[in-house]
């Protein structure tokens, strides 16, 4: 017993140390750098605090921070306003195409951020299929970024609200009706309060994701609507103002920390789903105008926000000239695909091993689980920046990039595996032991096969995340490490119609590759995506 405990300790320590080394150390270095170097904004004599606070008094930087918070807030509110009604219709009504619509709504889970940004541009942007009919000025529009945020996060709200509504006790609803509540009053006074904890928890997660998102903000916000993350990148890559950037990062860390704490607290209050006594879905009265309005509304929201950007990318790619196609399928692209493949594959192995180890060990300690979720909460821009400061002498080793990828992908493996292990009854393991199997054999012959689907699910999401990784690759990029995502960004940066068209083509290729990979790895169980068991998908693709 003691020996296996010791093995367990090592098994668990490695992933924890990995997270500490890859995430916490760079952040600490970044914070130390920001705290110890004199700021160009602060006074000569003033210490760290004066320089740090000076950021708030600099009108431009303050505006950027306020905008970051605003766009996250607006996106969250809009997601709730759109998502809760959609979720109610999905949870209560039975209509043609409902299942398909639910699955389509969950599609953004596997779409890389860069592709999502390109999709929003392809649909809503100045040259977009729908956007070309709007008026645009030089600076773009704030709504592009909000649309991008909605694309990614609407499904989170819908999923949480559906779970909340589906777990409603039918008895309570019936009682409310007989006590005199009209259907609307019953919704407002009974159904909504019941679903509120789940919705609030999802809202805080959405806020967190919107606040820390980089790829979307870079492409859709541009310079006029730059969020703080984009400004940090600009300060580092374009102006080399490392001190200013790190102090701005500290500010954002503060806000992100508050959001994380809020999410953790809210998550604890989410009630476990009821067993039995569920409200059954019903076929609505097709002759009623209200029904038609509801159904049309739901279809419009799901398609326009969720599916349209993806369709738009394929359309744009198909409409691109053959010159653009040949440009896109050049040697440069082949090299980028090779890079994406080798980085993702190697990181996948690393993330799987570390993730499964972490999930096995110490499941019962909530702080252990939080530690495993840490990479999801931190900003990859700050981690990459911290790495640049911490280990500049190792920045030409591709192992650093692979480790960074593995860091981002780890929680996606840990989550489903931990949940699968949670729901595994102890009785089976005990039965196997009593039948003569050693603990290792029990693990190999009983536990592993049973959690294999969860591992597959985790691996599929990890793969989708890494193929689409953008923020860290951009920051740590060396010319020989160009991946498909940074290649798209490069094409966007070069002027000329040809380059934009090539960017559409490459985005379509990246999207197809991601979808195909996900399908190969775990496609057969697509219907289970977005169900309450799996709190999956990384915000940092």
């Amino acid at each position, binding site marked *: 017993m003691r020996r296996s405990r010791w093995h367990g300790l090592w098994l668990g320590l490695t992933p924890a140390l990995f997270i500490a080394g890859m995430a916490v150390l760079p952040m600490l270095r970044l914070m130390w750098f920001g705290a110890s170097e004199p700021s*160009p904004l602060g006074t000569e004599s003033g210490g760290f605090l004066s320089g740090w606070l000076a950021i708030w008094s600099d009108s*431009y930087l303050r505006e950027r921070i306020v905008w970051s918070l605003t766009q996250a807030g607006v996106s969250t509110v809009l997601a709730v306003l759109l998502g809760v009604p959609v979720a109610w219709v999905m949870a209560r009504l039975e209509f043609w195409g409902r299942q398909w619509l639910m699955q389509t709504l969950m599609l953004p889970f596997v779409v890389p951020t860069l592709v999502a940004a390109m999709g929003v541009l392809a649909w809503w942007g100045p040259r977009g299929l729908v956007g070309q009919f709007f008026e645009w000025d*030089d600076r773009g529009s704030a709504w592009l970024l909000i649309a991008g945020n909605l694309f990614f996060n609407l499904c989170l709200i819908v999923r949480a609200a559906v779970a909340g509504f589906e777990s409603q006790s039918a008895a309570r609803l019936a009682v409310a009706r007989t006590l005199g509540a009209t259907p609307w009053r019953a919704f407002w006074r009974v159904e909504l309060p019941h679903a509120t904890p789940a919705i609030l928890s999802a809202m805080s997660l959405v806020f967190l994701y919107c606040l820390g998102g980089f790829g979307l903000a870079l492409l859709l916000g541009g310079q006029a609507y730059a969020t703080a993350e984009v400004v940090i990148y600009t300060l*580092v*890559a*374009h*102006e*080399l*103002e490392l001190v200013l950037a790190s102090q701005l990062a500290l500010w954002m860390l503060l806000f992100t920390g508050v959001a994380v704490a809020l999410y953790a607290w809210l998550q604890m209050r989410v009630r476990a789903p009821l067993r039995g006594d569920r409200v059954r879905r019903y076929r609505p009265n097709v002759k009623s105008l209200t029904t038609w309005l509801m159904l049309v509304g739901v279809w419009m929201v799901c398609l326009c926000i969720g599916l349209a950007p993806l369709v738009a990318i394929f359309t744009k790619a198909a409409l691109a000239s053959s010159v653009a196609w040949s440009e896109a399928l050049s040697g440069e692209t082949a090299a980028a695909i090779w890079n994406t493949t*080798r980085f993702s*594959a*190697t990181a*996948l*192995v690393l993330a799987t091993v570390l993730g499964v180890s972490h999930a096995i060990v110490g499941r019962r300690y909530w702080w252990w689980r939080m530690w495993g979720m840490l990479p999801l909460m931190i900003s990859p821009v700050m981690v990459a920046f911290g790495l*640049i400061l911490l280990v*500049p*002498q*190792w*920045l*030409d080793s*591709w192992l650093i990039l692979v480790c960074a990828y593995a860091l981002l992908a780890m929680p996606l493996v840990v989550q489903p595996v931990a949940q699968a292990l949670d729901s595994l009854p102890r009785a089976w393991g005990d039965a196997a032991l009593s039948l003569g199997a050693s603990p290792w054999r029990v693990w190999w012959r009983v536990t592993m096969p049973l959690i294999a689907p969860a591992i597959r699910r985790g691996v599929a999401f990890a793969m989708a995340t890494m193929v689409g990784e953008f923020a860290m690759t951009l920051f740590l990029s*060396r*010319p*020989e490490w160009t991946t498909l995502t940074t290649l798209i960004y490069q094409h966007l*940066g*070069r*002027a*000329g119609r040809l380059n934009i068209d090539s960017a559409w083509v490459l985005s379509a290729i990246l999207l197809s590759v991601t979808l195909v990979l996900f399908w190969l790895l775990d496609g057969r169980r697509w219907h289970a995506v977005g169900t309450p068991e799996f709190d999956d998908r990384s915000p940092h693709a």
Partner: protein
Amino acid sequence: MRRHFLLTTALVGLLFQPLFAGAADARTTLRVVTHSSFDLPKDLIATFEAEKKVTLRLIKAGDAGEMLNKLILSKETPIADVVFGIDNAMLPRARREGLLQPLPAETAALSLSPNVSDVDPQASAASDWLPIDFGYVTINIDKAWFAENKLALPTSLDQLAEPEYAKLLVVENPATSSTGLAFLTATVQAKGESAWTWWRALRAGGVKVSNSWSDAYYKDFTRNGGSRPMVVSYLTSPAAEVFYSDKPVNVSPTANLNLPGGVYAQIEGLSLLTGGAKDAATRQAAVDFMLFMRSAAVQKALQTTMWMWPASATVAREPVMTFAGKAPTARAVDAAVLDRDARNWVRRFNQEVVR
């Protein structure tokens, strides 16, 4: 089971791929990092590679300012052996960051055109930087637009800052673009401290700031479908317009607006990066490349691909360059001043004009 075995082997193979890659190659690879506007005829490069048994890896790293930033960020693990595109305004900064190695002895024999050494004697005398080409940064105007809108051209920098002209201008950000830095340096050189009042006036008037020369020229210039008929560009760009036009023309569609204080002499150079070209073969390749870039063939060819004038004393200018007009008088700023102040100017620009 077999499927898992194959998958595992494949992944393990991927893990050890770096060990197997790079099988012994007779050629040395020379990594050259350049700005995005670097362009030479392919056959010239191919001839060089074949003759010297070198594989040239050209790494384009954005506009020159962006490239410099990347080099500084990665200076402990340099991304290339040789860098092309650092200009005389950026040179002090590159030196201060310790990016440059002394030039190899073989380059000392190359002769420099007096046009170059007159304009910037300090840079020309550098021992860690080899001038390759030079040109003048100035304002280009779209003749058709001005004719159509019946607007007279501004005649001084001060007139340029008036709202009716400021909103027609696009400049580049000196943090990322060497063109932008050159123009900013020229204005500060001419106006001194009041340059900042002038820039603020420009900003209030509606000047656009672009991140790179190619963005400004190919996206924002009215000639290419943009909204600004005045762009900070090069003296030779009108010549390029003639060269590239579909039908033969006698007169360039664009013209230079050489305002006093709005012109800067820019020299681009080639350097060895600290930490690059470590082994003898690569070092020899670097020397060969430097001599190649100053060879007559390249000095002639770069005029019509990169649109700069040759730094070499022995190569004549191409005939099409007459469309660029006469070279204006402009002298470069003292290196010590640049060393001390350039970074602050860039910082101030970003604070006062961009943000």
